[in-house]
């Protein structure tokens, strides 16, 4: 082999470096795959990265020019994408050109459809080729950049939900730091480099985790600028159906498995004095809306398998606000979480994952309403038509004794329930006149003091709205009858309408004005007297502030309750505390040295040597160390400091205490500067946080 050949081969990265280079973009690609879910897409995107990368590296090693190989592989990749797109029945240009809006508006998790796969496969392949092209660079930045590009693409695609707890981000960081430590061609032993990398990694992960501290309520969501495909439905309320279900109590509507709580069918939030209306616009999962109220701080995740029987209609039952559904092409109303199957709910079988506001009952008595300055879209939930005067008077009487929002809600609930009775064949309807009859009619007249859950819930909503409580109506079902196999059969008798009131930081809280209705959950007794301690002032923030630690969620972290962002916040704060603690410990150590005169000044020199990775052996006397430092780092002051320290320590009548002289301080600075200059930049950056000196006694 010629000398030139040897030089060229020496310039090529080793196998470990190649594996590392490919692993970073592959890890980033995993973020893209989260938009699809399942196990096939991760394999596909990893292959899309690794195969072009490996091909490029191989052909370059075989002697093909790098740019020629890159061009050929890029053409091959485009050809593969073309063939893939051709199967979808669209043009290649059209598929690629529409890729972004298509991916951003399709329901997630995305389907493994050819038109949805072309763009990610092409992007992953191009990144793999680009990283392979730059893998010979000694800076080793290209793999990380490639990984970050794909990670960002994945985050863009999923709105940040794909890597919610930062697992892929942490993987990228760990891989990058390990690679830089182990593959960097320096004379330092690998073990030592790894030890040094530990604190760096902790800080880096801390920085990632500290993003939990950043308010994200205004985070950019690409779906807010892309109009998702909207499906409209004409049926605006299932309330009329309640009477039919009540009339056929034994009809099996659907079967559930999993969560044992009540299921929701439709959320009704608009009332015009005649009827309640549900959303009529539905989009894919991931679509956003401007008028969504913030969820409560304490939520639990609920998963339920549903098999529809005689339910009818197009709405699908779900245990809360759905976050994902499998087994059906359902759409969702992003404002209320109502689930819609455009093709009809009949015989649908699906598994739905949802989040349910699950506030700690102990927090309910102190619940407050959102601060008006928070400018939340509450108008819809407070809107009242021209209510008859009698109703006004009634509502005023009902809430007269209550002082807190929760007391008002409970007072309304108790008043509406009153002595009224449920009558399955009562006059249906939610119009004002019907509610007026229901609440204020003379016993014995038609519809007076009796009704279905529709009237109870509507009456509650009207009075509560009059009392200033943001209220909506939910049509759903009580938990069905449990079967021996653990499933629950929901029948017509379980259909129910109930009101929900929105409280600040607690989210939507269900109330049960209908007698004998079973919505599950715990409810505290609401004291009629004002609480001895005033409820906490509402925070003008739509999102929980970082210092609002959620004890309840933390307690239930091991269960099904969702830790909101408190866990991430705590982790971030903890990891931020590590570098801050190190900084403080180092400052205290230096402060202690400054109080010890020449001996402390010498200790600073010894610390500097530790930080430079060349600690002085404890068996070596100070003057010898000082001479060595003076020679190695060109800092003659070290010799003088060593002798001064010896004198302070061992001369008669010297305690070594007291502030160091100006000359000592200047000498320490000179030595420290000289030693610090000798270390690589990354160690200089880490200089004031490096904890190794803390171990030196």
């Amino acid at each position, binding site marked *: 082999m010629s000398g030139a050949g040897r030089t060229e081969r020496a310039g090529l990265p080793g196998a470990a470096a190649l594996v590392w280079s490919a692993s970073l973009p592959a890890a980033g690609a995993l973020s893209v795959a989260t938009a699809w879910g399942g196990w096939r897409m991760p394999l596909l995107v990893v292959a899309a990265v690794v195969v072009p990368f490996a091909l490029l590296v191989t052909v370059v090693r075989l002697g093909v020019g790098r740019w020629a190989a890159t061009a050929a592989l890029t053409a091959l990749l485009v050809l593969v994408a073309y063939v893939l797109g051709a199967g979808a029945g669209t043009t290649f240009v059209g598929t690629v050109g529409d890729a972004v809006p298509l991916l951003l508006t399709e329901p997630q998790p995305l389907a493994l459809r050819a038109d949805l796969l072309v763009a990610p496969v092409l992007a992953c392949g191009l990144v793999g080729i680009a990283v392979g092209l730059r893998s010979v660079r000694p800076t080793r930045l290209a793999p990380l950049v490639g990984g970050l590009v794909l990670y960002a693409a994945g985050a863009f695609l999923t709105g940040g939900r794909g890597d919610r707890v930062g697992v892929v981000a942490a993987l990228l960081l760990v891989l990058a730091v390990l690679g830089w430590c182990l593959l960097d061609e320096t004379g330092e032993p690998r073990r030592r480099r790894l030890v040094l990398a530990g604190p760096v990694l902790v800080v880096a992960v801390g920085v990632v985790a500290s993003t939990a501290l950043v308010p994200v309520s205004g985070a950019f969501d690409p779906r807010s600028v892309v109009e998702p495909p909207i499906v409209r439905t004409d049926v605006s309320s299932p309330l009329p159906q309640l009477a039919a279900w009540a009339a056929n109590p034994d009809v099996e509507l659907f079967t559930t498995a999993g969560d044992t709580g009540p299921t929701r069918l439709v959320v009704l939030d608009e009332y015009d004095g005649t009827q309640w209306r549900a959303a009529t616009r539905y989009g894919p999962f991931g679509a956003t809306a401007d008028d969504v109220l913030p969820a409560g701080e304490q939520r639990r995740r609920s998963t339920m398998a549903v098999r529809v029987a005689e339910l009818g209609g197009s709405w699908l039952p779900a245990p809360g606000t759905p976050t994902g559904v499998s087994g059906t092409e359902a759409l969702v109303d992003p404002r209320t979480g109502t689930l819609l199957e455009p093709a009809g709910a009949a015989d649908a079988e699906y598994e739905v994952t949802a989040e349910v506001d699950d506030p700690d009952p102990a927090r309910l008595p102190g619940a407050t309403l959102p601060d008006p300055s928070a400018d939340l879209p509450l108008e819809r939930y407070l809107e009242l038509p021209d209510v008859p005067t009698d109703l006004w008077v009634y509502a005023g009487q009902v809430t007269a004794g209550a002082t807190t929002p929760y007391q008002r809600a409970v007072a309304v609930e108790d008043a509406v329930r009153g002595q009224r009775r449920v009558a399955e064949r009562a006059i249906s309807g939610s119009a004002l006149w019907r509610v007026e009859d229901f609440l204020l009619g003379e016993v014995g007249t038609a519809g007076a003091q009796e009704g279905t859950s529709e009237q109870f819930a509507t009456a509650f909503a009207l009075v509560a709205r009059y009392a200033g409580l943001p209220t909506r109506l939910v049509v759903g079902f009580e938990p069905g009858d449990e079967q021996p196999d653990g499933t629950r059969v929901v029948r017509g008798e379980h259909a129910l309408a109930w009101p929900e009131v929105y409280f600040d930081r607690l989210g939507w809280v269900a109330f049960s004005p209908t007698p004998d209705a079973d919505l599950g959950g715990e409810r505290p007794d609401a004291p009629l007297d004002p609480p001895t301690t005033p409820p906490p002032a509402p925070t003008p923030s739509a999102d929980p502030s970082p210092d609002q630690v959620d004890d309840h969620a933390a307690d239930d972290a091991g269960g099904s309750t969702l830790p909101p962002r408190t866990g991430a916040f705590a982790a971030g704060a903890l990891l931020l505390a590590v570098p801050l603690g190190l900084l403080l410990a180092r400052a205290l150590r230096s402060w202690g040295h400054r109080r010890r005169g*020449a*001996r*402390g000044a*010498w*200790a600073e020199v*010894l610390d500097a040597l530790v930080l430079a990775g060349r600690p002085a052996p*404890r*068996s070596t*006397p*100070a*003057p*010898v160390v000082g001479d060595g430092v003076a020679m190695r780092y060109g800092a003659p002051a070290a010799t003088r400091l*060593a002798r001064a*320290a*010896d*004198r*302070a*320590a*061992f*001369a*008669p009548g010297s305690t*070594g205490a007291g502030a160091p002289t100006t000359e000592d301080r200047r000498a320490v600075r000179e030595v420290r500067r000289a030693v610090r200059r000798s270390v690589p930049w990354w160690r200089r950056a880490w200089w004031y946080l490096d904890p190794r000196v803390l171990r030196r*006694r």
Partner: protein
Amino acid sequence: MTATAEGRAHPSPTSVSEADVAEFRRLHQRLGDAVESAVHGKRAVVDLVLVAAVAGGHVLLEDVPGTGKTTLARAVARALGGEMRRVQFTPDLLPSDVTGTTVFDPASGQVRFRPGPVFSHVVLADEINRAAAKTQSALLEVMEEHTVTVDGSTRAVPDPFLVIATQNPIDLDGTYRLPEAQLDRFLLRTSLGYPDAEHEIDVLRPGSTAGRVADVPVVASPGEVAAAGRQLAYLHVADPLLRYVREIGVAIRTDPRVRLGASTRGLRSLVRCLQVYAASQGRHYVVPHDVQRLAEPVLAHRTVLTRDALLAGHRPVDVVHEVLDGVLPPQPDQG
């Protein structure tokens, strides 16, 4: 210094000031320069010998012939301004040849004492291991007692009294090895060794002053050196350093390869040397580096290894060095 009723100045326990040390350093410097004018390129050994002279100890030089042992002894004696006598130790040398004897003086008709060569400031005991044990013991006794007793009469040797003994480590046929216990009488053991290339060429150069003892200037008086030695006995040694010295001694004694380590007297000798050595460096206090510098010449010859260790190729010097590596010195940044 404090003045006594007799008008003589005696050092008080806390009287070693920086000025005193500076004065001694100048004296030591002068002596060293003077000796080095005849013994080129061996300043470290010269300084050690001078430390022993001031500390009131004796030096054992182990070296092959022709390295300048005699020249060194003579130059030291001359620089000190004292008298120097040389005794060539042979198997037939008698103790009285060393210490002196009583003889009948026919002129005066009286028996009088004729002093031996030990009655001088510097005694060069050349090839001490060639004399019989009895003769060696006679010299070693004088070294320890600084007196000679002949016919019931005790006579003191001059002060300062420095014995520089030599022995050839390679030609051991017909020699009488010094008893280990008596090696303790030597304050330190060292060797001159061959000079480095530069100095050896310098010695070879025609007209070189090397070896010309007669040209060594007299830069001090024996009384001056003796007074300095007495004064420096009060030089400060910090407690951590005394503990360090003891830990070294204990570590040597407890080393499994060692049959006999330095005694308390040996460690005390080390402290004595440390005081003088520190002053020679211009310090009125001792530092750990001094201990490490002097541990080998002071302790190695007091370290007797087991037979197994010797057969395994270990040397006392190695043991001392390993102990120095293992026992951590007090550091100025600690405490």
